[in-house]
């Protein structure tokens, strides 16, 4: 294995239990998003675009589909000799065998992997968030500050600050003075995005201490960051002002998809910063002679013979003649047969809506049909 300067570690074990039916068979990072992507495509593509060539993905809950999706890393150009994509499940060891005890534990349990790669800097990312960001610039800031740790933050409205992990900083330098986890009286409105760059040696020291500390919950936010701050480490904030979304609930997932349909979306997928994903080898989608599509995002292999409005349609989905799909998100391979009606819904992979059947939710109460189910 080749030495790399900057190692990416993506924590992709999240169960995403608030996504209910959508995470019955897959982990949250493998949930489809935006007409062709999976959530995890965003942090991985950010890594590739930031020039990070060795990326480790810590899996846990329902790892199989995620592992199969990631394959050998080729879609993200991470099928590299002596580097590339590594999947790190919480494997059973000689003596103990547990799921990762916390976010920090997932990294701690893989310290021997880190030693093998021997990076100078490590970025810890979450596999759950939708955003585009150049981590190379964040590393530049980390180096310029001669920092031990740099934490990505974004401004939230003051009234929402109590819901987040808040970083109080020195305005002039960005140095973090205090960390407050969901504070009643926030000292700042800079919330942590769960993106950390650490100088590798520094991180290893803290992980080794934390790993054997019985009273720790082994979480970056709860345990390591406060401890580091207490010890007077050089920790800086790095402000991000783009689109950033945790799509942790059905409503937020639906809403983030609908965001893409605005005339000028708050989040531009179409720029130079490409999001890569595993490709389904399908032709351009087909709109039939009686089809109609308005305010929609539609992907390859879809076949639209009916009407689609204000919806996101994934590869290989089909909408039959006279069928009507509105305000909905249709995952790959779902079939909406002739005359069926789908409104305010998310249909998971390979769902079938029989001719004339109806799936109708409403705003704030999105209807969800789980993978493979047949309605009507």
């Amino acid at each position, binding site marked *: 294995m080749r030495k790399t300067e900057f190692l990416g570690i993506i924590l992709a074990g999240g169960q995403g239990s608030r996504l209910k039916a959508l995470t019955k068979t897959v982990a949250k990072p493998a949930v489809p998003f935006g007409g062709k992507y999976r959530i995890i495509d965003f942090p991985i593509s950010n890594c590739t675009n930031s020039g990070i060539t060795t990326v480790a993905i810590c899996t846990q809950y329902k790892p199989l589909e995620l592992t199969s999706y990631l394959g050998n890393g080729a879609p993200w150009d991470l099928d590299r000799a002596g580097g590339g994509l590594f999947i790190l499940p919480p494997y059973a060891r000689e003596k103990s065998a547990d799921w990762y005890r916390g976010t920090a534990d997932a990294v701690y349990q893989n310290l021997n992997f880190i030693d093998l790669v021997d990076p100078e800097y490590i970025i810890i990312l979450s596999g759950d968030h939708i955003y585009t960001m150049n981590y190379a610039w964040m590393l530049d800031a980390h180096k310029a500050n001669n920092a031990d740790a740099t934490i990505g933050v974004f401004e939230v409205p003051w009234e929402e600050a109590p819901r987040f992990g808040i970083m109080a900083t020195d305005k002039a330098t960005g140095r973090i003075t205090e960390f407050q986890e969901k504070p009643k009286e926030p000292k700042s409105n800079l919330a942590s995005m769960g993106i950390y760059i650490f100088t590798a040696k520094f991180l290893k020291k803290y992980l080794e201490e934390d790993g054997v500390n019985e009273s720790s919950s082994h979480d970056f936010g709860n345990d390591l960051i406060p401890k580091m701050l207490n010890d007077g480490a050089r920790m800086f904030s790095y402000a991000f002002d783009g689109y950033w979304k945790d799509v942790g609930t059905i409503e937020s997932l639906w809403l983030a998809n609908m965001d893409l349909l605005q*005339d000028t979306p708050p989040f531009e997928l179409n720029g130079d910063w490409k999001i890569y994903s595993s490709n389904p080898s399908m032709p351009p989608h087909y709109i039939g002679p009686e089809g109609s*599509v*308005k305010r929609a995002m539609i*992907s390859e292999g879809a076949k639209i013979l009916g009407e689609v409005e204000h919806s996101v349609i994934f590869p290989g989905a089909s909408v039959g003649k006279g069928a009507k799909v509105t305000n909905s998100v249709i995952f790959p391979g779902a079939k909406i047969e002739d005359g069926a009606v789908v409104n305010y819904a998310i249909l998971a992979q390979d769902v079938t809506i029989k001719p004339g059947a109806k799936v109708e939710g409403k705003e704030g109460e999105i209807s969800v049909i789980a993978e493979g189910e047949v309605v009507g």
Partner: protein
Amino acid sequence: MKTVVGIVNLQESNELLRELAATRAVEALPFAGRYRVVDFSLSNMINSGINTVGLMLPDYSRAILDHIRSGKDWDLARRRDGLTYLPAALPGTDARKGDLKDIYANLDFAELSDKRYVLFVNASYVYNIDFADVLAFHKKSGTDITMIYKTVDEDKEGHTISIQTDDACNVTDICESNGAPKGSKVVLSAYLMPVPTFAYIVRSTYERGGQDFLIDGIMRHAREQKISAYEHKGYVARINSTAAYYKANRDCLNPEVWGELFMNHDRPIFTKVKDEVPVQYKDTAEVKNSLVANGCIIRGRVENSILFRGVKVGKGAVVKDSILMQRCDVEEGARVENIICDKNVIITKNRWVKGVETFPYIITKNARI
């Protein structure tokens, strides 16, 4: 199919394709919104389990090399087997025209491959086939050579090679003609035979002054070698003129052809992956009977058309019966009908452009109308 080495011939004459093929091989022409013509031959081979493929580079090799690169998107970037580029014979060594010279120069590729059979295909045909069926047919036939044909269901124009067969599917006559009536058995320029037979035909024909594999090689040896014919019953298009190119693209607007060519789960057509965003349809979009590739942004009206990746159609613009290649931009209020726009064409605001169906108007690369 591990006993077969595939050779893809990119030597289709491009004289009837006018501006479209001025700087690229016919096989490098963009097709059906996302593909290049050569993708069909390569994908057919891979899907049939042929892992050793030689690609005979045409004179204008740049577009092909750019498209295929390492062969990774076809899973042909392998350490053993996989894709081998076969460069053309050096100019100057021989003044002859035709494909035979280049086949002769690369004969050792097949001979040193350790494979038992050669599948030699011309890549200017669009179809989706399982060559494993052809191999099974060939073995059963007991003949020396198997060629693939299609019984055409309408009159065909242009240079054509057709065959006559007996009840046992053996070829009794091969002839060259200009056009072929409905019902003719037209050759798809795809041949399966043992490597030594292939080497014998190429060598003996070339060394006696032959120029063309089919005409000089196969036709001249038709008496001496037993030839059987395998009928491909599915859709076939041959891209040998602008009209044929235009028609074949529009054939893909037939959901049955679209499904047969592209949505066969066991035999997907692979192409270079570009990671475009799904198509964005805005409030004012009106789209009927069209293929729209990822990366497009549609605000206007699109009918009976094929839009390649990254095409923009502005508000109030109309696109009818047209093919717009990568990154064309039809600005607000513009109107195009029966045209083929090569890459990066801009039709400026309110401009109208119209060709006729039988002779579509071709707008060359990077033009601004």
